């Protein structure tokens, strides 16, 4: 992962001006940082990610990857720079775990069962990094939700892209798997990747993210490190809940919701 990569959104708006899903958002995503996007339901978090990936066309504004307009990149070119973990993860067919991970190599032309050596190595590495060695020959319909989340993570890592976008990767997972998935993503960032992750758990976001983007009503409310931005006033403002923010012994921030 020596290539540098950035995604720029410049004054991006989506939706009608009366009730915009995104309103005049300018933001840059880059490597070597784990960015968590937080905000209430309907704040525009998923829309922001979909714009960055070309899944949603903005009504105004410009999106570029590595200073090239997103629309000028072919799907393959884009997929070699940024990989995507969408929210919905149901598989249509009970593929084998290894085959799902191998799909991560799609942009490099590898067909299932006939992977080139380089692709096979990337797949094996991703399988190991997500602890799936013992599950590699299982069918995905026999896996638990946590195991399936790990498989999707491995699939995204197998692409070995400099950037990763994940929409609620830990939704509906048990605490063990929440930490595990976040640790995998953190590890990916430590190795030089850049991750943008939508999270709902503020404590999880504070302890793993290098940068928090707070969203409300289609706008960015704040953008900065957890230490700078995680305050009870902001939580009240963005989420409309009362909360206490404290510092644990290890320095990580702890958020406790106390009521509405």
């Amino acid at each position, binding site marked *: 992962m020596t290539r540098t990569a950035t995604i720029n959104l410049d004054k991006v708006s989506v939706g009608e001006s009366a009730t915009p899903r995104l309103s005049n958002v300018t933001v840059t995503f880059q490597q070597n940082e784990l960015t968590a996007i937080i905000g209430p339901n309907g704040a525009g978090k998923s829309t922001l990610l979909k714009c960055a990936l070309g899944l949603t066309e903005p009504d105004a504004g410009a999106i570029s990857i590595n200073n090239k307009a997103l629309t000028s990149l072919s799907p393959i070119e884009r997929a070699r720079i940024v990989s995507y973990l969408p929210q919905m*993860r*149901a598989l249509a067919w009970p593929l084998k775990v290894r085959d799902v991970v191998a799909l991560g190599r799609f942009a490099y032309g590898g067909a299932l069962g006939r992977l080139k050596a380089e692709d096979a190595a990337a797949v094996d590495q991703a399988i190991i990094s997500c602890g799936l060695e013992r599950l590699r020959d299982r069918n995905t319909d026999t896996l638990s939700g946590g195991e399936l989340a790990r498989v999707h993570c491995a699939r995204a890592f197998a692409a070995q892209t400099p950037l990763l976008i994940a929409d609620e990767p830990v939704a509906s997972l048990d605490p063990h798997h929440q930490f595990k998935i976040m640790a995998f993503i953190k590890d990916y960032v430590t190795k030089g990747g850049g991750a943008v992750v939508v999270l709902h758990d503020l404590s999880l976001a504070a302890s793993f993210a290098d940068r928090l983007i707070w969203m409300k009503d289609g706008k960015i409310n704040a953008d900065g490190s957890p230490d700078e931005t995680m305050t009870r006033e902001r939580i009240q403002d963005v989420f409309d809940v009362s909360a206490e923010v404290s510092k644990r012994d290890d320095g990580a921030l702890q958020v406790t919701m106390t009521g509405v």
Partner: protein
Amino acid sequence: MNDRLLLSCLGLASLAAIFAACFLGSTPMPPGRLFAAMVGAGSVGDHIVLWEIRLPRAIAAFIVGGALGLCGAALQGLLRNPLAEPGVLGVSAFSALGATLALFYGAAALSPFVLPLSAIAGALAATFFLAFAAIRNSSMVTLILIGIGLSSFAGALMALLLNLAPNPFSLSDLISWTLGSVANRSFADLALAGPFLGAGLIFIVMSGRGLTALSLGEEAAHGLGVNLRRTRMFVVIGTGLITGAAVSIAGAIGFVGIVAPHLIRPLVNHDPARTLAPAAFLGGILLVLADIGVRLIPTPSELRLGVLAALIGAPAFIWIASQRRTGS
């Protein structure tokens, strides 16, 4: 199972089925006479029975079954639904309607290509409509319901044509399109459909990898680098061309496209791309066997192939549907 081994087995089974279809029939033809007719020796009668009746019929059944098996596998991959199939989704019915319209208004007499082209036009109209509905509505149940609506609508239009049919001759023509049969097909009929089958095949083969990626859902497939618009368009055009060509040979025959891919999928680790070719072979074999059944089952008038296919296929459809887990 290794893909090459699977395809070799299916290829051999295909040859065996076609050979059996030449061998069996109302006029007994012992192997000795069959071989003689094959190499050009033997009596003129045997030669005609083999080369102008049984072999074209067997090959027509194989091509039509193969076409439907392939289209079923491709549509199932695109729509991520094991129940998608040209017959169930109303594509075959609209294709048959296109063909009957051409016959009904005498356009089919203008050129031999009018009939396959009208069948293809009907099939394409239905597949485009389905693809459009599938994009706007991600629910798979809705899609099947839309397909059932399309089938019923095509059926109603066909009934309207039956009502208006000017004479008994056109009436029986209409019925044979809806029931489906490969009796009395010649190599010339097959050659007419050939170019469309070939073109459709190219479209389907080019969309294979995209279908595998679509297992993860459309958004994830987009993220992997699949050109969704292109994949969707290729499958729609490919299945439209192939289903239309198959219907122009044999009329509307349902359910082959569900049963064949369903049986193949576990053998290829459920990979939609690797399902395509084996499902085509198996579809061909199944329809050749069904056509042998049609010829051997003693009924007052010969059973229609489409009728037998539906008698076997519809219960299979119900079984597969009841096996689906809810929530997807």
